[in-house]
């Protein structure tokens, strides 16, 4: 019995080391590249490390190296696009999520279908055709065009998260408020909205993250004029590994932090999102 337990422990430890190596390997490769100043192959580690590339990328030191650009403008642009995307998406998804949760809707099947389709089918052809439509109406390569593409990604998830949130609030609470004379809107504003606040906040954070990391839509409808952080990462990736790595880390940190915060509130299938 004792030996069996030892063997079991040994197997578990091997599994743990294996998982850690697989998880940490690629992440540490990114971190090492971001601080590598001199790295001659085939050395396992850089000869010189330092924060030179970080300082350049963050605009604290200017540089003439190939591909050296400050990522600050792209970062600010990404944040601005994400904030506007969140505001517009929430303004659209809160009423829709509430309606889906609280009313029996004729043709409800059609509405559900419309919001489920983007999860079931590849989205790339959508962005390709948005580019075609945008080109005709002058939205191609503009910030509003990119925001609309990001809203598409945000709204699909936002509707599900908000409607699940409103569903979890018992209707009896709003009914109680109405029975003492509150109007429907007051009952919503004073009862449902505060109770739903944590779920709505999670939805907002999720849409923010999705917009920050969105690649495919921006690639088609935004390039070459709208350089968000993921676009900067992509263009740096071709010729300057250090800048690409710095950008990737800047992009990764908020995603990981926020997702850890909100993952408990989200249903498993939404957490993965779309590539």
């Amino acid at each position, binding site marked *: 019995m004792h030996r069996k337990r030892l063997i079991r422990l040994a197997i578990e430890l091997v599994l743990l080391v294996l998982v*850690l190596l697989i998880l940490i390997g690629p992440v540490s490769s990114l971190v090492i590249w971001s601080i590598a100043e001199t790295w001659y192959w085939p050395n396992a580690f850089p000869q010189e490390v330092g924060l030179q590339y970080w300082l350049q990328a963050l605009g604290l030191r200017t540089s003439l190296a190939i591909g050296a650009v400050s990522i600050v403008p792209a970062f600010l642009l990404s944040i601005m696009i994400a904030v506007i995307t969140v505001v517009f998406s929430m303004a659209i998804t809160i009423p829709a999520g509430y309606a889906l949760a609280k009313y029996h809707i004729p043709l409800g099947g059609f509405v559900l279908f419309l919001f489920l389709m983007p999860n079931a089918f590849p989205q790339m*052809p959508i962005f390709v055709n948005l580019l075609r439509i945008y080109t005709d109406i002058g939205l191609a390569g503009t910030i509003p065009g990119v925001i609309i593409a990001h809203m598409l990604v945000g709204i699909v998830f936002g509707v599900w998260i908000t409607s699940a949130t409103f569903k979890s609030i018992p*209707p009896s609470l709003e009914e109680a408020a109405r029975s003492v004379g509150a*109007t429907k809107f007051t009952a919503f504003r004073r009862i449902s909205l505060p109770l739903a606040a944590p779920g709505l906040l999670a939805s907002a954070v999720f849409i923010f993250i999705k917009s*920050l990391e969105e690649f495919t839509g921006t690639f088609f409808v935004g390039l070459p004029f709208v350089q968000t952080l993921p676009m900067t990462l992509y263009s740096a990736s071709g010729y300057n590994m250090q800048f690409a790595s710095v950008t990737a880390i800047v992009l990764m940190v908020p995603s990981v932090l926020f997702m850890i915060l909100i993952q408990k509130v989200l249903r498993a299938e939404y957490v*993965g999102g779309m590539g």
Partner: protein
Amino acid sequence: MAVTQTRLRHKGGIPPYGLLLLPAVGFMLLVYAYPFVSSVITSFVSPSGGLSLVNFQKTIDLYLKDIVFTLLVTTSNTVMILVAAIMFAVYLRMSDTAVSRLLSHIYKLGIFIPFVVVAQMMRSFLAPHGMLNVALAQLGLINIDRPLQLFNYAGLTFGFMWKLVPFAVLIVHGGFQMIDNSYLEAARSTGARLFHVVTRILVPMNKSSILVATVLVYAQIVSTFTLPYMLIGGKIPTTITVDIAHRVNYFRDFGVANALGVVSYVFVLVTAVYYLKNSMKQHQGKKVKEVVHA
């Protein structure tokens, strides 16, 4: 506030949910449904304007290799990801040790990292002179002058597994946790072996979440652009998402790009129908239940 309500009622008798849903449904019709329908229609329109199959003919002539490659990547990776995820989820469900508790938290890391960052990671980690090859050479497993070339099927598979195994574990493990301990204890007490507990109890009782994980993983692999684009790019064979980008960026050829898009729709047809049916049933089922409660 009362004014708002009466105004809502007076406006031609539109029910309140109609107004609440209007912006969202309108947005989806304009920004999703319209491009979707137009992608299918455009694929059947020839450059001269008539209805024809010329785009599909060109797609097959130019990209048949890539279509086969994409099918191979999506199906084989989905199987590998699901097998790995089920095994890992079984381990998390069946054991309660310090190690398993630690693993049940850290395995999620990949889920939270954006695909574009994963793509950049793999580009540096799997490169001919990258960390993996250097580490393998240090261990004496490969000759450093002949590093493993991984910017192909192998690297793509590693990248997809790195990102999507944790996602599949999250869904499958969630399902396993719903299965009551008493089933497992009953089976173990009658002497069932672990293999039988897994194949006769855990997997069959958790069929729905395993299927949902399969469908979502498969659909994600078909539609992911960043990883194949940054890892393989225009080399042959590559995935059809990369071909679509090339067709649009270099040739402005929306006909063939959309034909490739329609091919990707066909790839997911079965899983999409299953997912839509299943989710609609689930959502509508819940609604009926709530009406009964009220």
